[in-house]
């Protein structure tokens, strides 16, 4: 039997995408090499490890932390992270008294340069509908139970400003290097649905 370029018929959505892309290429509107380069960048080079480096630097360098909280975009750019969906960044700090959590109830706005592309749950109706009305219940689903006295701040990204949470540095990490600290920082802690643990 002759080999075939594909092993199954294409799905309807695969056909729609191929039709769209091939027409845009033919009309000279899209260069497939540009599409490939963007996919490679956001699949392999941009992601929450970027944000983790920003957080670790803020934990070890008080002057950097002050710049990060005052001028987020510029301080993040100092570490080499900038661009689309992070053009105007605001970093919000978790403390013993305040816990911040991010959402976009209207679409799925998310800080791409520091966190990469958002996970499906962040883009989906269950999270977007509920975190604004019962944030503590949602955080419990992620395993985070906050004291009643903690102020919970829910940031709904309705504009082109993009937010990132600066989590609390866990206790007992005084001996760790900046790189070791960065390895502790998770995507979910920078969205604000969990804390960083040792």
């Amino acid at each position, binding site marked *: 039997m002759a080999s075939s370029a594909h092993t199954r018929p294409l799905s309807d959505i695969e056909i729609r995408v191929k039709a769209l892309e091939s027409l845009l290429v033919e009309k000279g509107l899209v260069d497939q090499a540009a599409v*490939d380069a963007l996919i490679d960048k956001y699949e392999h080079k941009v992601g929450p490890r970027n944000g983790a480096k920003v957080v670790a630097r803020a934990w070890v360098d008080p002057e950097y932390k002050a710049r990060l909280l005052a001028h987020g975009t510029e301080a993040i750019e100092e570490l080499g992270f900038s661009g689309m969906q992070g053009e105007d960044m605001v970093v919000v700090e978790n403390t013993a008294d305040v816990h911040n959590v991010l959402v976009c109830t209207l679409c799925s706005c998310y800080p791409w340069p520091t966190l990469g592309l958002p996970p499906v749950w962040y883009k989906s109706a269950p999270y977007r509908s509920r975190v604004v009305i019962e*944030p503590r219940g949602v955080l419990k689903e992620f395993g985070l139970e906050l004291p009643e006295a903690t*102020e919970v701040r829910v940031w709904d990204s309705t504009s*082109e400003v993009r937010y990132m949470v600066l989590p609390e540095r866990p206790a007992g990490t005084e001996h760790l290097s900046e790189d070791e600290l960065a390895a502790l920082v998770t995507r979910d802690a920078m969205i604000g649905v969990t804390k960083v643990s040792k």
Partner: protein
Amino acid sequence: MSINAAQAIGASNSRGGSTKLDVEVAPRFAAGQRIRVRKINPAGHTRMPQYLRGCEGVIAQDFGVFVFPDTHAHGGDQKPQHVYSVRFTAKEVWGREGGERDVLLVDVWDDYMDAVP
């Protein structure tokens, strides 16, 4: 007409997509001021969520002048105006079901608000 790979990566690394505008527009509000979100129900695009319409909040911070999405989505008029971070208590927004110590911080354009006297 199409951009090549280097141009695409360059654009994705740049702040070129920012909708912040370098133009002088007088802010309608100042930090600390009480506002009420207008009860609007436009047929077209808007970035003012329904759950906040009619609610009172306090201006926390002025982010500067940005493109106004309600006009930009319909014909491209930028209608430059200020965007603010506005703080709402969960009690104000949700009533009895709102958490005692929970607050919402939402980005709101000038055209979506009135001052509370």
